[in-house]
């Protein structure tokens, strides 16, 4: 286990249950989505692409408060981050393209959009048609397609994206493991 001790473990089932109960519109993206679509590579956190409408972000804020969300800040411990005077609500979420959080259900990142291969920013509505729908304990989870995940990682172009891409492309193309 490589998780730093201060972070609660990922409890995606609880996360999905709480988001579902608060009727949040979101799509699982990033490494977690890749994992659900067959990737072996581990992920760092749970990334969600949220529908940007104000009422949806208010519901997301309420769900995150239930999960004791606090900002995750490089250079601050979790205890220090808890002390920041951050209001976890729709207004704060709308003020960031990407916000990084620690919750009782693990690390959780909220994205307002994700890049396409050509750099266009795709919102929830742009990705919705291609999602895969998964049911977890009666709750519905929408998972972004491999094409969407690959395009966003190609655009992000970080070392960790370069590490993840070969496996994701292999899965998309239906090729056997190298």
């Amino acid at each position: 286990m490589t998780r730093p001790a201060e972070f609660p473990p990922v409890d995606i089932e609880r996360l999905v249950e709480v988001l579902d109960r608060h009727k949040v519109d979101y799509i699982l993206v990033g490494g977690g989505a890749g994992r659900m679509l067959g990737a072996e590579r581990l992920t760092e956190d749970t990334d969600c692409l949220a529908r940007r409408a104000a009422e949806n972000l208010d519901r997301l804020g309420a769900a995150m408060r239930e999960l004791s969300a606090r900002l995750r800040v490089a250079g601050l411990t979790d205890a220090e981050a808890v002390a920041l005077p951050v209001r976890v609500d729709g207004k704060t979420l709308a003020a960031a393209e990407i916000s990084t959080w620690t919750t009782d259900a693990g690390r959780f990142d909220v994205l307002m959009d994700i890049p396409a291969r050509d750099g266009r920013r795709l919102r929830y509505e742009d990705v919705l048609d291609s999602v895969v729908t998964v049911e977890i304990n009666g709750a519905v989870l929408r998972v972004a397609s491999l094409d969407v995940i690959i395009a966003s990682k190609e655009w992000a172009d970080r070392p960790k994206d370069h590490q993840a891409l070969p496996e994701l492309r292999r899965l998309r193309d239906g090729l056997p493991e190298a």
Partner: protein
Amino acid sequence: MLPGWLGRLAIMKTVYRKGELNELFEAALPATADDVCITADGRRLDTPEKVIAWVEELNAARSDDSAG
């Protein structure tokens, strides 16, 4: 013919029972230095000072809203 990734989805698990999904996420990688908040106007909040300034900015905007 179906593209490869779509064929893969045909055999993907779409219903999970309690505990099954958490197993997939059980081990997590550590966060990386590029794992930071980015504001709506594109600022990377990659130091505690930048995050604190942003939070103060948001709270000041709320105060202005409630005063106005």
